[in-house]
């Protein structure tokens, strides 16, 4: 008898539904808490600072339902995941794999505990990290937005585990989502379209649908990823079946622990330059004659693609992000990138006098070094210079728990329901039922609830 080789979705699903994710170290569970806290805060912050996202209009009653964060209502779960994911996307602060919004909705549906959510997030992050290492580079070369395409796989694993799917059903869901996930061009971001914010929620929408559908047999082909007409060959331009790299969970360290949070509300490509700037004494914007940024090639390539100066395009641009930072001395979520700020003559002059080029120190072969050197030439001829070979909150100096807590509270605002303050997701007992947490948040307070 000849053994049938398991396909990649089989392998991923078998691991994700096993005790493997439960075996992750305490540090991984801590990292998962941090990710949940941050994504929740960003979504609630987006709702508070930017108003209701249009996808919330699509979110209609239906079963199974889950909470629409910040709106004190439950809606059909895929739409809760969609709207919750989109709500904070325009803040450009979200980090890490797309696990939390789909996972939260699935945890509510299946009446799971906070600990179950953490385990599922670890699983989703691990699968997402594996696929990202394999395909994100080629996706970027195609001008595509890797998280928008690959995020659905993380979301499916997270949701699927919480929904209690078997390995076979989760494999089918992963294969199904691989068929419906978008190729997702980067162009909406660099073109400044508000539609770009769909990328924040669509992976969760798809992931939850796929998880629900697989229970009724609406699944994809087992070779959806590596097959001769599958997704990977289309990304790698292979023209036929491809051999995936080995999946070794935890081999490179746990992916959820490698999430680096975003301190600045703009594309990561700008973060090294902004980190360097933050180390300089603030100059009078009117005294600045020229700004020179030398950074890593992908950031320069993105800069070349930016079209127009809509707020979202400015968030994709090193030049505009630097200009707003220099004009205001900081970047505030929901405040620094608006139609008013990007049309401010001070900002536009600074953007016009900023150049972005590849820095030789960052252009070599090998792993990408996300660094930048910045020179500010003042009108009197003096030059301020700084460099950052890693963005703030990068791998060597990650955000502390306190910094993340502060950021969460700042985003959510001072009308936070007491129950949510008391809960403190960084210390919440893992046995806490998710439905109880949501219900508690809806009592008291006038501001955002879950």
């Amino acid at each position, binding site marked *: 008898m000849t053994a049938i080789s398991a396909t990649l979705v089989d392998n991923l699903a078998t691991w994700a539904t096993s005790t493997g994710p439960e075996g992750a170290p305490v540090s991984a569970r801590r990292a998962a808490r941090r990710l949940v806290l941050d994504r929740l805060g960003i979504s609630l912050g987006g709702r508070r600072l930017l108003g209701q996202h249009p996808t919330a209009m699509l979110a209609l009653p239906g*079963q199974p339902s889950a909470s629409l964060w910040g709106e004190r209502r439950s809606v059909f779960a895929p739409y809760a995941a969609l709207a919750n994911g989109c709500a904070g996307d325009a803040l450009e602060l979200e980090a890490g794999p797309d696990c939390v919004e789909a996972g939260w909705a699935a945890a509510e549906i299946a009446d799971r505990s906070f600990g179950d959510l953490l385990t599922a997030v670890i699983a989703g992050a691990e699968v997402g990290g594996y696929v990202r290492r394999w395909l994100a580079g080629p996706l970027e070369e195609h001008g595509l937005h890797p998280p928008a395409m690959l995020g659905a796989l993380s979301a499916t694993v997270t949701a699927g585990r919480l929904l209690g799917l078997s390995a076979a059903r989760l494999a089918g869901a992963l294969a199904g989502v691989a068929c419906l996930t978008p190729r997702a061009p980067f*162009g*909406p971001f660099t073109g400044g379209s508000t539609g770009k914010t769909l990328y924040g929620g669509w992976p969760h929408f798809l992931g939850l649908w796929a998880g629900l559908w697989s229970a009724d047999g609406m699944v994809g082909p087992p070779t959806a990823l590596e097959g001769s007409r599958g997704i990977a060959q289309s990304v790698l331009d292979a023209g036929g079946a491809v051999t995936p790299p080995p999946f070794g969970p935890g081999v490179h360290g746990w992916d959820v622990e490698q999430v680096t949070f975003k301190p600045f509300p703009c594309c990561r490509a700008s973060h090294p330059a902004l980190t360097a700037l933050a180390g300089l004494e603030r100059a009078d914007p009117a005294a600045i004659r020229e700004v020179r940024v030398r950074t890593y090639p992908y950031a320069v390539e993105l800069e070349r693609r930016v079209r127009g100066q809509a707020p979202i395009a400015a968030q994709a641009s090193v030049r505009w992000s630097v200009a707003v930072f220099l004009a205001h001395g900081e970047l505030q979520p929901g405040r620094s990138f608006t139609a008013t700020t990007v049309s401010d003559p001070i900002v536009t002059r600074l953007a016009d006098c900023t150049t972005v080029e590849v820095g030789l120190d960052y252009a070599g072969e090998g792993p990408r070094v996300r660094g930048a050197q910045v020179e500010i030439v003042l009108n009197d001829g003096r030059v301020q210079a700084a460099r950052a070979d890693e963005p703030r909150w990068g791998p060597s100096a990650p955000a502390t728990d306190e910094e993340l807590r502060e950021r969460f509270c700042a985003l959510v605002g001072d009308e936070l329901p007491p129950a949510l303050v008391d809960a403190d997701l960084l210390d919440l007992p893992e046995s806490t039922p998710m439905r109880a947490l949501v219900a508690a948040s809806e009592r008291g307070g006038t501001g955002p609830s879950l």
Partner: protein
Amino acid sequence: MPESLLLRTARRVADLGWEDLLPAVRERLPLVVLDVLGCGWVGARLGVHAAWVEQIVAAGGPADATVWARGDRLPAPHAALVNGTIAHHVEMDDGNSRASLHGGVTIVPAALALGEQTGASGRAVLAAIAAGYEAAIALGRPLLPGIGAHRLHPPVMVGCFGATAAASRMLGLNVEQTAGALALAAEVLPAGPFEAFTKGAPIKDTYGGWPALVGVQSALLAQAGLAGAVDLFEAPGDGLGPSLLHAPLDTAGFGPDPEEILHNQYKAYSTCRSVQPTLTAVERLGPLDPDDVAAIQVETYPYAVGLSDDADPTTAIGARTSIPYGVASLLLDGEVYPESFVARALADPRRQALAGRVRASIASDMASSPPVRGARITVTLTDGTIRRSEVRATRWSGEDPATPEELRAKFRRLAGAAAPALETAVDALPGAPHLDGLVAALRVRP
């Protein structure tokens, strides 16, 4: 700078009314609707994806639009999703080779769902459907080479544009909103790997319904104020051109064509289009006793051979890309209709044995670019007799289009007992002030 393709297309869509349609287009539109309704009814009769449909129905939500052949009413995006998916299963819905579009299962469900929700007139719905076809083909044509090169399924992408255009028209969006809606759809075009089809995965059937859902939602989001990037086709570094063609897209030669729907092709067989030239050639051979067949050699165009070689003929979906399975079914059943793909047929040893005697290879004279979508058949009978047949096009395509009578006969066959009510209601659409008559017919069970 010239206006972007999305804006040019939106300008046509947003302005298109019944009075703007060519007489031939007006005449053709009811047949377009009937063709997909027939597919929907036979899918429902076969119980396709019954548990999945129940799940979507159980999800509930506002009762805005009707699930065909069931009568349940769902939110418009969900009704469009279910109707397009079930109708697509049998692979007899229409096509348009200029952009590899399956407009019937993507555009029509979106237009009918929103037409029902908004209380639109029959003419408004039909005009929206025409707008959908024009937009889908205008936007799909420049992308088609890139989609094919990546071994992806063009209709699932192209159909999103058509459904979005139709939905935008139904919602009365202006030019900018329509362009924005089309751009939103472009963001979330499903990757649609062909693997789902050749390997017979159930999700492939959503390649009909998912674009319908995307279309309705994109239009609703644009109406709610979400703005798409209307230069997404032309964006040089990270628009749709680089993502699929590795180069910026020159859209200068593309745009809506008012005759587009007249180029539709209809399917006489329940298979992927790639199998259909072969089936046409086999039919031309005339009567043939399957037991007399020793071997059949099929020569056809490369794409068809590649799909067939990758096909899993043990599944109802995968078998529809298999040339050997299609040929065997035609010889055994005398036709290739949905019944040739039910579980009993798939497991039929006689069919499998006959398929095992069919070989497909590439015809060098059909390998041009674009290919000649033809087939050459050589049948060797058990007594040594050789019979040959060759076609350069599929039945009901090109120089040999389906007649209205043939399309109505196909519809009646597929829709069964529901056919009279549906046919009456659809034919009345050009004079109908609303869709109530059609909606009543849509509830008729198979």
